[in-house]
């Protein structure tokens, strides 16, 4: 209390202005280091031999090309990437299509049951995936979908979190725009497609980044349903390299870097829309 009142009353001296700011920068630097360190360590380790990595060597080494060659020798890279890309892109597009329609519907249509159903949808957020795993696996088994990519897609498509995200964003979508479109002769699906989607495009971009990352990095469920090597995704392959009897950590690091690249790429390409979408599409 006193500190605040003095610094307000007296014109702040140089020190009292610089010190809090310095503290902020120190805190931010620590946070930045903590979050970037694994990434740097991954880069450095990819150039070292497995033995050096275990020793904790933190400088660049000369084993990079060797590690890359080993990785490509052990892993069918094009197939694994194709599997990952197929699953992640399809899942993302389907999730966004289904969940944004649901979010739009929940916000636009009034009904007595609306909020009850919506609460139910949100309630599913509280059920941990671990509790769903076994029943889901049994369902997929009955449907004969084990070891197919469809088994990965189906449970992710209706995402309560993304429905919630779209409904919140839709609150900012002016209802008069929908009315104007109706007067202009658009049907509901046309309003959605020709007005809502373009107006909300930064919301879609942000959702795309989030959902793509979730799907690309998805590990547990694919681990359970994908059993043959020809269907496995990059996350599974890299982790199986790491859990081998004698893991070659240099090779693992190459895999990790390759697995990280697409999400980085998506993020950098869509960074601006992502931030705009998080702030809300409609201004």
């Amino acid at each position, binding site marked *: 209390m006193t500190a605040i009142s003095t610094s307000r009353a007296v014109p702040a001296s140089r020190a009292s202005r610089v010190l809090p700011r310095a503290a902020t920068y120190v805190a931010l630097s620590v946070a930045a280091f903590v979050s970037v360190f694994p990434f740097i360590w991954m880069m450095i380790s990819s150039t070292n031999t497995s033995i050096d990595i275990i020793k904790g060597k933190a400088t660049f080494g000369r084993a990079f090309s060797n590690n890359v060659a080993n990785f490509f020798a052990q892993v069918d890279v094009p197939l694994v990437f194709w599997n990952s890309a197929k699953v992640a892109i399809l899942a993302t597009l389907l999730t966004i299509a289904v969940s944004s329609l649901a979010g739009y519907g929940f916000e636009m249509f009034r009904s007595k049951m609306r909020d009850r159903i919506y609460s139910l949808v949100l309630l599913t957020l509280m059920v941990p995936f671990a509790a769903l795993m076994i029943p889901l696996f049994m369902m997929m088994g009955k449907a004969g979908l084990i070891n197919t990519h469809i088994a990965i897609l189906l449970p992710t498509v209706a995402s309560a979190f993304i429905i919630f995200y779209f409904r919140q964003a839709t609150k900012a979508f002016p209802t008069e725009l929908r*009315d104007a479109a109706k*007067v*202009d002769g658009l049907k509901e699906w046309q309003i959605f497609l020709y007005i809502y989607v373009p107006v909300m495009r930064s919301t879609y971009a942000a959702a795309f980044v989030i959902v793509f990352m979730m799907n690309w990095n998805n590990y547990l469920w694919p681990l359970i349903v994908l059993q043959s090597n020809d269907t496995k995704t990059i996350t599974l392959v890299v982790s199986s390299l790491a859990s081998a009897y004698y893991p070659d950590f240099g090779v693992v690091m190459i895999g990790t870097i390759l697995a990280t690249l697409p999400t980085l790429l998506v993020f950098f390409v869509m960074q601006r829309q992502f931030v705009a979408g998080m702030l809300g599409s409609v201004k």
Partner: protein
Amino acid sequence: MADVILKDIRKTFGVLDVIKGVDLDIKSGEFVVFVGPSGCGKSTLLRMIAGLEDITSGTLEIGGQVMNDVDPSKRGIAMVFQSYALYPHMTVRENMGFALRFAGQDKAEIARRVDAAAKILELGPLMDRKPKALSGGQRQRVAIGRAIVREPDVFLFDEPLSNLDAELRVHMRVEIARLHKELNATIVYVTHDQVEAMTLADKIVVLRAGIVEQVGAPLDLYDDPANLFVAGFIGSPRMNVFAGRVIGASGTSALVSLDGFADKEIAVPLQGPVPSAGTPIRLGIRPEHFTDAGEDSLSITIDMFEHLGGETFAYGRSTSGETIVVTTRNGRSLSTGHVLKAGFDPTRALLFAEDGKRIR
């Protein structure tokens, strides 16, 4: 062009009755304004005409055809919204041509109509901008342009000027009046701005709580309101209302005494029978009907005044605590505490029953 006829139109939202039986006859080419306090159902009624709200019961005819269940785009209407509702991802030109493009009009015809509307509204230099890059007034003009392009039988406006600043509002008001003349269109216009209603309307519809209180030409409503509500709603500052009672009759005039001005006897001429002595009444006198001359007068002690330059509103109180407003043209010499002799012509005073109904 088309007539719009509402027959016993009702609307309920769940258990809430919002429109409670509205009958209305709007002639082709007429400019009709809905006024009324906030929440009285103006927008709801307009949206029912547009087809944006279902009609719970009653019939709506446009151009002789029952339109209750017809799609909004097929009713021959165009609507201008309070927030303009321009499509933010389209340029002005695309916004204006969207409905036609969507209806499959050919390109040349769309271009012709859009250019014609742009010319009327002087939108020329703005055609390739997005709505974000326009000022409020420009957006409003585009919204009107978008309506014009569709060449509707009926234009519907929901408080189109309420987001504009005072100066622009006056400007756009004049524009809309000009448009009405130029297009010779039927217009239904919602506002709660009195001046807009008085200046634009051929016919004003005063709504209260989902019921039509009175329909009439602006000056008819002003001169001859059907009840206290309309009398209070039309005219600014509000009409002064004094409680009193009938004390007798003199010919066709009612002799009235006011509670707040003891020993004052006012003879109000009536067309109909004079209520019996003792009947409680309300007497209404508009602030601008007080003059220096006038057969009768009230003495008012001024507590406060507002100089508007040309005229002055002087505020006072009767002995029973009723606020009185007097509009005067020579109010510069007034001061608080000053006793103003507010003369009036008793033929301009209006008599109302206690329940608010006019006694004519």
